[in-house]
């Protein structure tokens, strides 16, 4: 919160941003036209278009903003005003994996603060910084609507539920080593750029991506199981790497259900 604004210069105005190479521009223009066609008013396409340019370069560059402005008939100032308002648009080169530790009150209290501190120490980076290998950008995030799975870590906006300090460290180690990492809810991780393309509104075409993670996480099912007369489950804790399916409360139910 005490970071200095970037790109602030009181000297000569910047020259216009360079355009995308022709082949890139042609490809992005086709995507952009598809996005714009979804809306009655073209300006509504601005947020998805910013996700789109982020899927090209990994962050929102001046070139990307110029592209959006051209496509929508806006000024670059109008685009920049929007791009700098929303926290999901990255404004500098960043890692393949955006690791966000929830440190809003509930997750923080449940261990998010400890996880965030441990990861900063483990990775040697501060909030919003990227590891030297360009793999991991670490940040703390606000409530991500998974409080019943606290403490929560998000990687490229997939859920890693019920984390501990150790599981979070293993997670970032795996990411840096290039191991295939699977979230507790969500699809096997793709890079930040690929994720940004889904956010622009282009469905994930990978086989099995929609199915991945099952119908619902264990906490989502607790009330339903109780309502069906199934015995109350034991404390649900499933560190990353274990299959949540195995932790369904079949054991206790069989014992006490008679």
């Amino acid at each position, binding site marked *: 919160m005490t970071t200095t604004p970037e790109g602030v210069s009181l000297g000569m105005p910047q020259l216009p941003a360079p355009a995308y190479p022709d082949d890139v521009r042609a490809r992005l223009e086709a995507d952009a036209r598809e996005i714009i066609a979804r809306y009655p008013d073209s300006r509504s396409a601005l947020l998805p278009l910013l996700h789109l340019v982020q899927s090209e370069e990994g962050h929102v560059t001046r070139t990307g903003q110029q592209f959006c402005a051209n496509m929508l008939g806006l000024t670059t100032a109008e685009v920049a005003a929007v791009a700098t308002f929303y926290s999901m648009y990255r404004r500098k080169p960043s890692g393949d994996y955006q690791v966000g530790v929830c440190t809003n009150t509930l997750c923080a209290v449940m261990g998010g603060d400890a996880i965030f501190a441990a990861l900063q120490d483990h990775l040697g980076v501060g909030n919003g910084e990227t590891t030297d290998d360009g793999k991991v950008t670490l940040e703390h995030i606000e409530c991500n609507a998974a409080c019943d799975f606290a403490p929560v870590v998000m990687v490229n906006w997939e859920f890693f539920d019920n984390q501990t300090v150790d599981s979070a460290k293993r997670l970032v180690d795996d990411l840096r080593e290039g191991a295939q990492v699977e979230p507790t809810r969500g699809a096997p991780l793709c890079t930040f750029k690929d*994720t940004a393309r889904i956010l622009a509104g282009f469905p994930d075409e990978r086989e099995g991506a929609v199915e991945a993670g099952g119908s619902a996480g264990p906490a989502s099912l607790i009330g339903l199981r109780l309502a069906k*007369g199934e015995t109350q489950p034991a404390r649900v804790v499933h560190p990353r790497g274990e299959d949540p399916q195995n932790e369904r409360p079949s054991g206790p139910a069989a014992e006490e259900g008679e």
Partner: protein
Amino acid sequence: MTLAPELNETSPEKLLVPVLSAFWDEDESWTLDVYRRHEGYEGLRKALAMSPDDLIAYVKDSGLRGRGGAGFPTGMKWQFIPQGDGKPHYLVVNADESEPGTCKDIPLLFANPHSLIEGIVIACYAIRSSHAFIYLRGEVVPVLRRLHEAVREAYAAGYLGENILGSGLDLQLTVHAGAGAYICGEETALLDSLEGRRGQPRLRPPFPAVAGLYACPTVVNNVESIASVPAILHKGKEWFRSMGSEKSPGFTLYSLSGHVASPGQYEAPLGITLRQLLDMSGGMRPGHRLKFWTPGGSSTPMFTDEHLDVPLDYEGVGAAGSMLGTKALQCFDETTCVVRAVTRWTEFYAHESCGKCTPCREGTYWLVQLLRDIEAGKGVMSDLDKLNDIADNINGKSFCALGDGAASPIFSSLKYFREEYEQHITGRGCPFDPAKSTAWADRTEVNA
């Protein structure tokens, strides 16, 4: 599995009523096939057999109230849309679930997206809209995938597109991913955001029903509100009214989180109490007791163990001095420092304040400065009145409810836990050990 012969008041079979969550435990619950197997899109058939005005009246009669926090009657919102005005009408579903503690719409959309889509088609038929939008917060890609797929399936099956089920209704549905801004959960900020602008609230009137998206009549409804409509149509308004109370009828999702034995989603008639929910689910984590909790997210004034028997419906929670909000029951035990909790929430509001209104923008900033000092043992007693004073200057003095939400934890924590603030000041620091509050604090072995 045998059931006890008599079900007492704490039996979950009697107290819970899974409707939206009824088949989340089935394989591929998010697919059209499974949804149809559970009488999906039957409510739509009934709706299309009615006239749009009758449909609005029916939903109004059911008593369904908004599940996004404010509790405004859903049917009345639909009725406010002027008809025959020659302008396009829009339905915008608020899926920007970001209120701290709130975690109901995301699992609902992950496991059962078709309930929302069916509700959207019904609502659009009622308000005569041919284009609807789902504004989903961007930070939940697994849910976005399922929505993309569910919308594709619905188009392919003829529930979206042209001449839906031969009714003459044409409807286009656009899934729109946001980009990270709590304020966009506020309906007019959401509309600005959907128009491709910074998400800043608008002055009302005009209300969205008159001048919403693109200055056209627009209904903005929460995910759970719209997703509840198909069941009301299919099973009847009398069935719906048989649950809950006269003024707060129906079922809803309660989200239990924090230091409880079994955090998760509990679907129950409105009016259940936290005591009942805790009794059936194993209570607080072993060896600990409830200290404070929120009935509906961080923006709703906190409660203590005095309030365990407050009926969790709109009137009950209101009468006890808070708001039902999003039914996000965040429970904290005696290991938790209330100053730390409130400081963190306040940092959140300061971060998320859009900056449009001075009282909120400046006030939240100064609240954070004071709270951080108090938490660090650098506060003075007069800071406590200053906190109250600043919160009072934010509350009700900005365009939207974000400022009111920021004031809530301040007012309520000072009301119930002023002594704890004073302890931080006189004791020159925080008397709590944060390690004791963690999820793993009491775990003797971690099989990670």
